């Protein structure tokens, strides 16, 4: 075994108490880093999944109609005028099949679904409820929001006069699978449809208002033959939705809203959470580094006479330097292995404790290999770095003084 390793390992084995103490410190630090990352990662994933479970990543609409004045003021003529907001009527996206083909080409876009979104009423007997009519192409819409997986009753079928409604809406109207309801659109047309399925997306508003029907049916209801009012997109990486939206905006001239702008509060909450996580991790790392450094400094002081002897009998100072660097690195790497196990255990324990009555976890902690590799790399690096000062101190000991005073 190389001299440096032999001496370093023997010193650590010999000072069992010190070694155990510092390993414990590193392990606790690493487990906190792992636990915190897994917890917050899991929480964030679950929040984003819930949010995106009931909304598309990007929604394309026709730009709002803005009033335009007929006369503009000039430097010599002032005009007193009042601007009235235009009323926004439901309009079809111009040349939408071309737009669909175009946005399918945008990098990052993985699914495109043209649809009609309109307001209306649903009536059954005495019950009346405001609704959002979503006319969609059944298979394409599934790739945006997987309604089929969220069905609580019936089946996902939107042909002819068939609709699938949100569970809250079904409850409000008192309907179940096979029942008929009358829906009327803001355009004045109405129709009797059969409820073939009921879904729960977990979003209160959506579950209480959505009525899914076929695109063709909605086109008839809103007097938009062959038209669509919205095009919904799904992107590969949810966090690039805003960039993709900007790209789509540029290419099509349509209004493109990403989930990120719609859920700005959620995002700022998540980013605040991430930065507090980073802060905690940073200070944990600093504390671990100080721990390793102080124990090694004490060890250098305790062993200064022995270091002096080694130097006197002809050990080059760089080997002494390495002896202490190796100790720092080994403490870091071994401590992080223990800490990884501890952190994983802690995370799984937490997940079990927070499970609901049925035993299903409320959210999954996110433990992946990269997290462990990251923690191990950090701990080893910190171990090495914090050993630098003690190691330099050891390697610069004057042998004669160290032997006399050590």
């Amino acid at each position, binding site marked *: 075994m190389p*001299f440096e390793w*032999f001496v370093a390992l023997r010193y650590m084995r010999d000072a069992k108490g010190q070694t155990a103490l510092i390993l414990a410190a590193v392990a606790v630090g690493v487990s906190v880093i792992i636990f915190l990352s897994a917890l917050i990662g899991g929480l964030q994933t679950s929040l984003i999944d819930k949010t995106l479970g009931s909304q598309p990543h990007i929604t394309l609409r026709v730009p709002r109609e803005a009033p335009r004045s007929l006369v503009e003021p000039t430097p010599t003529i002032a005009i007193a005028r009042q601007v009235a907001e235009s009323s926004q009527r439901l309009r079809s996206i111009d040349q939408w099949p071309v737009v669909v083909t175009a946005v399918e080409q945008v990098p990052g876009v993985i699914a495109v679904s043209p649809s009609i979104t309109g307001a209306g009423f649903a009536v059954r007997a005495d019950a009346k409820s405001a609704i959002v009519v979503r006319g969609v192409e059944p298979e394409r819409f599934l790739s945006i929001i997987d309604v089929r997986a969220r069905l609580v009753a019936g089946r996902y079928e939107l042909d002819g006069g068939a609709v699938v409604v949100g569970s809250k809406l079904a409850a409000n109207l008192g309907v179940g699978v096979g029942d008929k309801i009358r829906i009327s659109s803001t355009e004045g047309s109405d129709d009797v449809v059969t409820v073939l399925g009921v879904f729960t997306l977990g979003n209160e508003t959506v579950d209480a208002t959505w009525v899914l029907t076929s695109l063709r049916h909605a086109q008839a209801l809103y007097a938009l033959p062959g038209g669509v009012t919205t095009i919904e997109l799904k992107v590969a990486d949810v966090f690039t939705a805003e960039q993709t939206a900007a790209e789509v905006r540029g290419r099509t001239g349509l209004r493109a809203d990403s989930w990120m702008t719609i859920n700005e509060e959620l995002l700022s909450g998540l980013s605040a959470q991430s930065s507090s996580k980073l802060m905690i991790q940073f200070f944990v790392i600093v504390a671990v580094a100080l721990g390793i450094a102080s124990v090694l400094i004490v060890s250098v002081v305790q062993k200064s006479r022995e270091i002096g002897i*080694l130097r*006197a*009998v*002809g*050990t080059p100072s760089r080997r002494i330097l390495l002896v202490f660097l190796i100790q720092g690195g080994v403490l870091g790497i071994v401590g992080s292995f223990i800490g990884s196990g501890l952190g994983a255990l802690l995370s799984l324990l937490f997940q079990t404790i927070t499970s609901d009555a049925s035993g299903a976890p409320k959210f999954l902690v996110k433990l992946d290999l990269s997290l462990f590799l990251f923690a191990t790399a950090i701990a080893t690096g910190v171990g090495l770095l914090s050993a630098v000062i003690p190691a330099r101190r050891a390697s610069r000991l004057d*042998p004669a003084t160290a*032997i006399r005073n050590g």
Partner: protein
Amino acid sequence: MANTAAPVLVVEGVVKEYGEVAKTRALDGVDVTVGPGELTALVGPSGSGKSTLLNIIGLLDRPTAGRVVLGGTDTTDLDDRGLTGLRARMLGFVFQFHHLLPAFTAVENVMLPAWGDLGRPTVEMRAAAEELLRAVGLADRMHYRSGNLSGGQQQRVAIARALARRPALVLADEPTGNLDTASSAEVFALMRRFNRELGTTFLVVTHDSRIAEQCDRIIELVDGRVRSDRSVASSPS
């Protein structure tokens, strides 16, 4: 005896001063030449500069003026790396408080100088260490932690360590200073034996006049100067 051969050690006009403002002169122009195979005692009262001289000869300290030539190499212009290398190849050390590394076994302690110099242990290194430990009578204690050995045993391990690399010169600083009479005699006998058998040159700092009288030569240091330098006629041979 072998004074016609090239000297192992030449100390020329060595001066050592301590302190920045109020200078203390620990050595005031010391000239010493030691030939190969000599067993020399360095004696003198406390504060006479024996330890300072030994540290300078041992390349652990640098003289303020003068020079030290070890085995033909002038050490004046060597940097730390050069001094360390020369120490590793040319010198062996035996200290008063044996100074073994307590976490290591006897045989590991004997191997450490060569191991630390060359980086990796070799079969020969281990064999040589074991042979030396047998020679100092510790065949059955080789794998004991050195912290678990008695003072006399530790000093014998220290002598084995000093000799492990067959150095030209072994420097011993009060090697028997901390031992009872029986152990002292035993330790000195070992040095004498290695001196005879291997022809190793020894320079022994001692307070003990009985030890000094058994050496080949006695150099007496007083107030940083060599007061006397004589051969011991009655050296048993």
